């Protein structure tokens, strides 16, 4: 048996990487980034000192990821400084971790999504306008181990409600399926491996395999991962939901449009993220984009009330998939 898997590995790894080519300009980009990192390190050290002296939230200015230049009364910050402040704001033990996050997500184009124990499964491909699992927008709430997502189709009708409560090995998942007026609840992954629903239309493009054995991560951790996964530059300010947000744009992405994060310069919490869920057909192919607007609210009775998944009257309980 061991021999079989070893053989499979050797052949599979060969097939998996055959034909890969080093992108043009990789060395030049590495050189540019090495220089930038060196300069940013120096600038961040200076900026950090200045911030401690000022004792106020930083004002971000400039339209470049290059090291800051000082002038006027505003404190010019580097992108490295902004990213580090966002990381601190989103850290699990930060004072802002005690806020309830509310998110509004828009997907373009729509895709198939269905609830499973501890996670949701996503399938991209021809959207399948007749698919019962077509999802175009989502509303979500998160607070510590509690999570709720309500998915809507292009017509604005609810598709499903998904709730995750508790952390550790066996969080409880609750789902309401509006199409057939049913709901289910299960602790952990349930007694049997979940069955994958056919979430797409007539054809599903294969995407790879996510980790079905771990609950979906909190959005703040997803953003932290994104921050750690890319280099960013500051691309000025934009108004997002009444906030004059700092726009951070990912550098060197292969997607048709780069990922971006808009940050509140007072709190350094993200107010919007724009990212590519998947690319099909390479750089010039089709991209599935996701825009999420965030609000960060105090944990009041009213805001916490949104975290539960209400079971509509008359709905029938069914086994989890």
């Amino acid at each position: 048996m061991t021999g079989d898997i070893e053989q499979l590995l050797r052949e599979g790894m060969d097939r998996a990487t055959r034909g890969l080519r080093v992108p043009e300009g990789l060395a030049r980009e590495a050189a540019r980034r090495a220089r930038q990192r060196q300069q940013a390190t120096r600038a961040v050290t200076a900026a950090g000192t200045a911030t401690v002296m000022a004792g106020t939230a930083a004002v971000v200015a400039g339209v470049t990821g290059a090291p800051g230049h000082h002038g006027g009364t505003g404190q010019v910050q580097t992108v490295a400084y902004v990213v580090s402040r966002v990381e601190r704001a989103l850290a699990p033990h930060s004072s802002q971790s005690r806020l309830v996050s509310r998110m509004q997500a828009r997907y373009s184009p729509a895709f198939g999504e269905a609830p499973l124990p501890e996670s949701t499964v996503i399938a991209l491909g021809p959207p399948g306008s007749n698919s019962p699992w077509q999802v175009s927008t989502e509303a979500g709430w998160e607070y510590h181990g509690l999570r709720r997502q309500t998915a809507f189709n292009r017509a604005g009708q609810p598709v499903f409600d998904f709730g995750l409560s508790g952390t550790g090995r066996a969080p409880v998942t609750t789902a309401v399926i509006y199409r057939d007026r049913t709901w289910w609840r299960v602790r952990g992954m349930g007694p049997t491996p979940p069955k994958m629903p056919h979430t797409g239309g007539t054809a599903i493009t294969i995407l790879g395999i996510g980790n079905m054995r771990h609950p979906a991560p909190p959005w703040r951790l997803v953003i932290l991962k994104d921050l750690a996964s890319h280099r960013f530059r500051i691309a000025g300010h934009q108004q997002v939901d009444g906030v004059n947000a700092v726009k951070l744009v990912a550098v060197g992405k292969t997607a048709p449009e780069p990922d971006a994060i808009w940050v509140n310069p007072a709190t350094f919490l993200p107010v919007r993220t724009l990212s590519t869920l998947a690319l099909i057909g390479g750089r010039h192919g089709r991209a599935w984009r996701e825009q999420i607007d965030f609000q960060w609210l105090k944990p009041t009775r009213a805001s916490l009330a949104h975290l539960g998944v209400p079971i509509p009257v008359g709905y029938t309980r069914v086994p989890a998939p």
Partner: protein
Amino acid sequence: MKPDRATAELEKFLAVRGEALLRTATLLAGEAGSGEDLLQAALERLLRHWRSIEGSPEGYLRRTMYHLAADGWRRQAAWRRPLRLLQAANRAPAPDRMAEVDLRDAMLGLLRQLPARQRAAIVARYWEQLTEAEAAQALGCSVGTVKSATSRGLARLRELSESWNDEPRGVKEATRS
């Protein structure tokens, strides 16, 4: 050596050895995009230490990639990036039927599910064909750690590949996590 000259030297080197390095980086990182990022990160480190490196930079690059990968490299982006497709640009989805699993995706999908150190050990042993001692040197750990990481990685891969047989043929979808 000036940075510009170092970059030019590096470009020449990559023209010859870049593909082999990228293949290893892709396996270590779990997908092509992250593999490019991993290789680029190693190149950055190489350029920062360019003056002190003697001879071919390949050994330094490989060691750096393994170290970064085995240390649970922050750039592996395990949650979102698995969704990126590695399919060829001109490969359209098959109409009216489920497309078959791309073996390229399948293998990388399996490797992605291993912890970073196990994946690095598997790549070192079964892709690079390194001995346990060589793999230990590349990963910066003991031979015993390489043995246990390889053993556990293989066991996990076996378990994962067996579970595939229980799923509908040709259907693999991605979770958000």
